[in-house]
């Protein structure tokens, strides 16, 4: 591995972490799409900054770009407040307009400035090691590394300083306000960090793919855990994994580095989406099937309990025509009830056993008092076999 390759991967990893931290909070606050808006609308800020400084990595440019990101948020919120359009329409109106202004500004001045829209949008990580920070003749490494390193360092500092506040204001805005934490300050603080990170990352992975690095690792982590600290950690791990393996994929295919990293992020998300232990697609499907039968069983037992005196209502046949179930379903429900010793069948008349009566009575109590978790515990106590 050449030193340029190592530097590229290092930059990519720092970008991944710097994005994953604010990204986690944005996903939890249901504001993932605001990153979409920010990442597009920093373009005019970048262009103006570039006209002034002629240097993509100057602090002034980063400041101007981040400012236009925060402005976007303010503008979106202003439009939302007027009530002229609904919710996310405001986002959808603001960022294409600002982005178009940026594109046109670049096109109009194409002769004077060399600023490639593709580079801004898609980033060119491969060139990052060539732009080096040289102080008094000393080579201090690639400029991007310093920029994103500084951003990451400040993000981590802020995270440690305000972790408690961020946590409270994310999960319980009302409590946060009661504790004297201004939700407005938290909100705009987070927006500012997100804007600065987006700007800092654009020249590595490109403005659009910043969205992927912000949302995908956090969303993937959210499918695996509810614990905020674990979620941030997992998001960072997914980000780093995608950064490194994405680099080598791009190397192998000779294709866009940021595209490959996003593709790896997509693959990781797809795998977790399908196979996550509790929230994955398959485990949800399995649980739903199990619960469907168990709910049917509850229904059936309750029905028996409601009609102790009426043998007609408890006839096996009744399951089919009255409760309106198909044969297969009623058979599997009957089998499950029998296996668990909840019922007895005599001359095609179904009766509750004592255990069945117990179970039914407890279940209805829990449901009426809204104690869902108790029902699951109860199932564990009563069921020998699950659905």
């Amino acid at each position, binding site marked *: 591995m050449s030193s340029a390759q190592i530097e590229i991967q290092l930059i990519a990893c720092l970008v991944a972490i710097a994005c994953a931290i604010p990204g986690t909070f944005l996903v939890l606050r249901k504001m993932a799409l605001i990153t979409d808006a920010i990442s597009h609308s920093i373009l005019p800020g970048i262009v103006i900054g570039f006209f002034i400084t002629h240097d993509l990595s100057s602090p002034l440019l980063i400041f101007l770009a981040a400012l236009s990101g925060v402005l976007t948020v303010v503008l979106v919120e202003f439009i939302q407040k007027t009530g002229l359009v*609904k919710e996310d329409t405001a986002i959808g109106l603001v960022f294409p307009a600002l982005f178009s202004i940026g594109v046109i500004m670049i096109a109009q001045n194409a002769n004077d400035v060399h600023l490639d829209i593709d580079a801004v949008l898609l980033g060119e990580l491969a060139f990052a090691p060539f732009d080096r920070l040289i102080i008094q003749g000393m080579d201090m490494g690639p400029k991007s590394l310093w920029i994103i390193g500084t951003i990451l360092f400040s993000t981590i500092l802020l995270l440690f300083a305000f972790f408690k506040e961020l946590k409270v204001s994310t999960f319980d805005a009302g409590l946060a306000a009661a504790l004297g934490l201004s939700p407005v300050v938290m909100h705009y603080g987070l927006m500012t960090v997100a804007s600065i990170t987006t700007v800092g990352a654009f020249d590595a992975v490109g403005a659009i793919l910043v969205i992927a690095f912000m949302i995908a690792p956090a969303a993937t982590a959210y499918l695996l855990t509810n614990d905020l600290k674990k979620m941030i950690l997992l998001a960072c791990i997914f980000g780093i994994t995608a950064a490194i393996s994405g680099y080598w994929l791009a190397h192998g295919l000779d294709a866009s580095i940021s595209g490959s990293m996003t593709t790896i992020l997509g693959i990781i998300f797809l795998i977790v989406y399908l196979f996550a232990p509790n929230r994955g697609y398959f485990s949800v499907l399995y649980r739903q099937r199990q619960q469907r039968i168990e*709910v049917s069983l509850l229904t059936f037992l*309750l029905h028996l309990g*409601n009609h102790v005196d009426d043998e007609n209502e408890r006839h096996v046949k009744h399951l089919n025509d*009255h409760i*309106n179930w198909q044969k297969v379903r009623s058979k599997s429900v009957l089998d499950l009830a029998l296996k668990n010793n909840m019922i007895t069948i005599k001359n095609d008349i179904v009766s509750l056993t004592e255990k069945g009566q117990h179970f039914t009575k407890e279940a209805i109590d829990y449901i009426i008092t809204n104690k869902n978790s108790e029902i699951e515990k109860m199932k564990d106590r009563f069921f020998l076999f699950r659905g």
Partner: protein
Amino acid sequence: MEEKIAVQIDDLTVAYNYKPVLWDIDLAIPEGVLMAIVGPNGAGKSTLIKSVLDIIKPIAGSVKIYDKPYQKQRSLVAYVPQKGSVDWDFPTTALDVVMMGTYGSLGWIKRPGQKQKKAALEALEKVGMLAFKSRQISQLSGGQQQRIFLARALVQNASIYFMDEPFQGVDATTEKAIINILKELRKAGKTVIVVHHDLQTVPEYFDWVTFLNVKKIATGPVKDIFNDDNLTKTYGINYKVSVQQ
């Protein structure tokens, strides 16, 4: 009692996310009653109506409207959803919304004509909203919006009316106007079923009541079953009609 049964519900069980919200409901609603469904929040009152109307699929049980499945009897049934369930900023006028009541009888593709418009105008007049017919619906007050919804159901000219909290967020005048229309409907032999949460007004407004809390607690004439015993069973705590303000 030798009454015709308008709505027959058998063993109805409904679950959201596999948690039962209605459990093994048996209910027979006789023709010509003005019935309140009462129960605490989350008792499944709206769910009961919605599953009768096939908006929500039950996991067990059956519903019959005059002895036939609902799907074959749609024209006999009118529905007033909760006011909050729609976007009142939608670009349409009061008359337009009421006209929607005629769409069911028109079926697919056919357009409403003069006849439908006349029926809609009549319904608007009945609810005292004729003057507001070209008003954009967002410019109506909560009570007026509810009247529009009621007019839309009246246009359907049904035999059975299901209403989800029609008195929620309306002014006193509208409440009186609505209950008068409901009583007129009953006089004309229609069956009216209302999800209601103001226990105070139950004896004054309704002649039939169903207590519901996941399970059916009781159903019958208000004068026979609207008592502290059933209220306590439904709401869990010691409930006294007289104390309830």
